[in-house]
């Protein structure tokens, strides 16, 4: 049994909805609703779901970029949400994030060498020469050339900017990286380069990833374990092999069958879900998926299915599994 690096227990994050003249809270968007999972050291955990299902909010709440509503997040046994500001700041170098949009996450007026190195100054490295050396080393690992050091973000293509984003996360030698849709904005040929870079880094530096994506095929390629989310809840979680060979939840099955496969000879039985994703401000009763589920019954409308282990560390929340 490998060591647990991040332990998430019953995490909840509700955003208030305000209304009326006095901006009173009239309801909540339950972006993350009672989610528990753990990430072992050195593995990558994939979090999949459609837009608005709360996957990015989980990433941000784990890193305490937003405050939780309830639940605990343990990193190496320490409760991140109980730490004082200064203690958290000391720990920050070990917890990093890579964002989806490399265009808007870089300051256009800062040369990228400085953008990558600024965290070093902040965390106690005083010698400019050492900073420069470490930046150049990290840039090299991420596939950037030394002459890029003095350039500005606008001089780079999307793929290179994502490499810069990864370099910024990597410079502090983190243990844990949250990668929030890091390849979604990139073209196929560039996407493959970045995926390979991420998996090389993981192997060489024993990194642990929380990989957030809407693309199951990318997650299958990169992750060891996968969780599928729908409207703020985890509906299924299993190892990659188990999940892709034997998906149990009807939502997971539909997601998998919805992905177009680049093979025109293939004729697939596709499960096309009806309707749209309901608003997370007003989720359906019982099983949240019942409005779109092909096998839903009356029971699903009233009773929330229990999220349980069905063997092989395969968790699922559905009455009919």
């Amino acid at each position: 049994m490998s060591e647990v690096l991040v332990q998430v227990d019953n995490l909840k994050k509700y955003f208030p909805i305000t209304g009326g003249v006095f901006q009173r809270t009239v309801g909540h968007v339950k972006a993350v609703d009672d989610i528990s999972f753990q990430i072992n050291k050195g593995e990558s955990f994939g979090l999949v779901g459609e837009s608005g299902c709360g996957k990015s909010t989980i990433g941000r709440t784990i890193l305490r970029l937003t405050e939780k509503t309830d639940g605990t997040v343990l990193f190496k046994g320490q409760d991140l949400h109980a730490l004082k500001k200064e203690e958290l700041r000391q720990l920050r170098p070990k917890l990093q994030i890579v964002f989806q949009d490399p265009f808007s996450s870089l300051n256009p007026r800062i040369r990228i060498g400085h953008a990558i190195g600024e965290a070093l100054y902040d965390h106690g490295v005083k010698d400019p020469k050492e900073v420069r050396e470490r930046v150049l080393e990290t840039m090299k690992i991420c596939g950037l050339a030394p002459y890029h050091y003095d350039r500005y973000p606008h001089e780079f293509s999307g793929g290179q900017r994502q490499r810069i984003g990864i370099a910024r996360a990597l410079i502090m030698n983190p243990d844990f990286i949250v990668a929030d849709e890091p390849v979604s904005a990139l073209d196929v040929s560039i996407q493959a380069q970045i995926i390979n870079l991420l998996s090389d880094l993981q192997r060489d530096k024993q990194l642990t990833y929380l990989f957030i994506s809407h693309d199951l095929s990318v997650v299958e390629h990169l992750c060891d374990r996968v969780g599928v989310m729908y409207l703020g809840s985890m509906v299924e979680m299993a190892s990659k092999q188990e999940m892709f060979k034997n998906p149990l939840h009807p939502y997971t099955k539909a997601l998998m069958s919805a992905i177009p496969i680049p093979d025109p000879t293939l004729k697939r039985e596709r499960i096309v879900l009806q309707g749209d994703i309901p608003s997370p401000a007003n989720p359906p009763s019982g099983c949240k998926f019942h409005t779109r589920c092909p096998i839903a019954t009356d029971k699903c409308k009233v009773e929330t299915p229990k999220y349980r282990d069905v063997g092989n560390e395969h968790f699922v929340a559905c009455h009919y599994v």
Partner: protein
Amino acid sequence: MAKDLVEFRNLETHFQTPAGIVKAVNNVSFKIREGETLCVVGESGCGKSVTAMSLMGLIESPPGKIVGGEILFEDRDLLKMSKRELSLIRGKDIAMIFQEPMSSLNPVLTIGEQISEPLILHMLMDRKSAKKRAIELINLVGIPRAEKIFDSYPHELSGGMRQRIMIAIALSCDPKLLIADEPTTALDVTIQAQILDLMRDIKKQLKTSIMLITHDLGVVAEMADYVVVMYAGKVIEEAPVLELFKNPQHPYTKGLLKAKPIINQVQERLYSIPGQVPNPIELGNNCHFHDRCEFCMDICKVKAPPFKAHENQEHKSACWLYEEEREVL
């Protein structure tokens, strides 16, 4: 054999920028036949959208300009038409849907007004019959409660529904050609599956030709009859869909097919094409893919390969690997 509906002949669309001329569409020729779905596939900046915009007469000038070539629609050159003639065709015989359905709908008009507009303009209907037809169209694209939707505003609808409305507007005048520019890129996969299904039904029922622009080879495999692959402003390969996926010729097409992770087919390591798309400004007259190509030869750096068929007459590509001439040089 179906008739040709549209033919691009040596189309050249250039953009004047402070840094130099960008040949966004560089000598592009291909045909769209009646009742056929043609997919244009390529990465961002390869000129696929500009090709469609040139067809619609939507190139903003300046900075853009169509400097050469012809676009034949039912044997008439769209580029020689007056604005008036063009506006009779546009929106009626040729309709277009875009990637971002929110920004292509007018937020201050109701859905009903926006669907009725082309009906009143092109089909000369009165308001009452336009409304009747609009409600039929909303039903056709699979939205329930059509009467209620008729009076809603775009912000009240979800992304998938907005895209359906865009399709309804596009279909309102029974177009012969539907251009869809990345229609599902902004949508979730389950919604994408719905929209692709809808487009397939439309093609079957109404026999509309579709020009589908996409970067996703999975979508191509599901939708296309015929595929055109573009790179840096040029068509580098075209073939019927089965032939292209079975027998890709150009190294770029091969690379694209290998680089995409496919569900339930785990590879140890993804194939990746090294480098990046070249800067489009002042590209030379050579193979634009040469600096990323693992088969690059001396001739690739100095001379552009001809675009022609090699073994299969329907399968064309532009690569020196398949030319005899390279031996001579």
